[in-house]
């Protein structure tokens, strides 16, 4: 649609016209600000959640999780990309000096902050999932979305 508009405006003398080809979907999936009535997952996502690097000792990550009061602790690489999630049961069963990367769950499911919040919560409730990891389109962490955080 936007290429047609760009061509049309150029023909009407509005040159040069630029086309943001990836569009609104790209903008919202990157967790960037928007105006409008949409209620998106990013608006209800808990930010600043506990994170660790893959080399962090299990004992330290377990302390992070206990201080936060909920899990998991998200394991990030040097670029801030979510590589996995560390859950209490695995952490408690591992040696305290082991690297969390060896006990984390790799390949956790993620959603974009641009998802409709109510639809996401509905899907999570149906699947009996209480929380999900929210990442931008480049895989970097936004936070954790809890279905229960949505106002009823």
């Amino acid at each position, binding site marked *: *649609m936007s290429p047609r508009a760009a061509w049309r405006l150029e023909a009407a003398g509005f040159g040069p016209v630029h086309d943001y080809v990836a569009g*609104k979907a790209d903008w919202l999936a990157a967790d960037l600000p928007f105006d409008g009535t949409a209620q998106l997952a990013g608006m209800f996502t808990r930010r600043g959640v506990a994170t660790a690097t893959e080399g962090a000792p299990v004992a330290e990550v377990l302390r992070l999780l206990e201080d936060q009061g909920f899990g998991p602790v998200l394991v990030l690489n040097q670029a801030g990309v979510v590589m996995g999630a560390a859950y209490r049961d695995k952490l408690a069963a591992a040696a305290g000096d082991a690297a969390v990367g060896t006990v984390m769950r790799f390949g956790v499911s993620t959603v974009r902050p641009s998802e409709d919040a109510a639809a996401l919560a509905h899907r999570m409730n149906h699947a009996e999932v209480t929380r999900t990891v929210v990442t931008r389109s480049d895989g970097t962490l936004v936070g954790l979305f809890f279905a229960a955080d949505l106002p009823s």
Partner: protein
Amino acid sequence: MSVVNGYLLISRRVWQVAEPGLGIVMPTGIGRDELRTLTGRGAQLVEVLPAGDYDWAHLPGAVSLPLKELDAKAGQLDRSRLVIVYCHDWY
């Protein structure tokens, strides 16, 4: 930034800007970073989706100019400022 064999090279992306030999200048495709740079310099941002989509969510500062109303309402745009259009996604 340079034009090579009809292609404009912009920050690791290659956008076709002209049919070689035809002298046609095509609208320039840009990414998120270029959009922020250009709007920072005063470019006007135009959402061409239907008004309902605009009301649901739009980029800050964007104006609504649905494709079907483009010809009738293009006059609302400032001809002295660069125009950036967008819709929902690539398609």
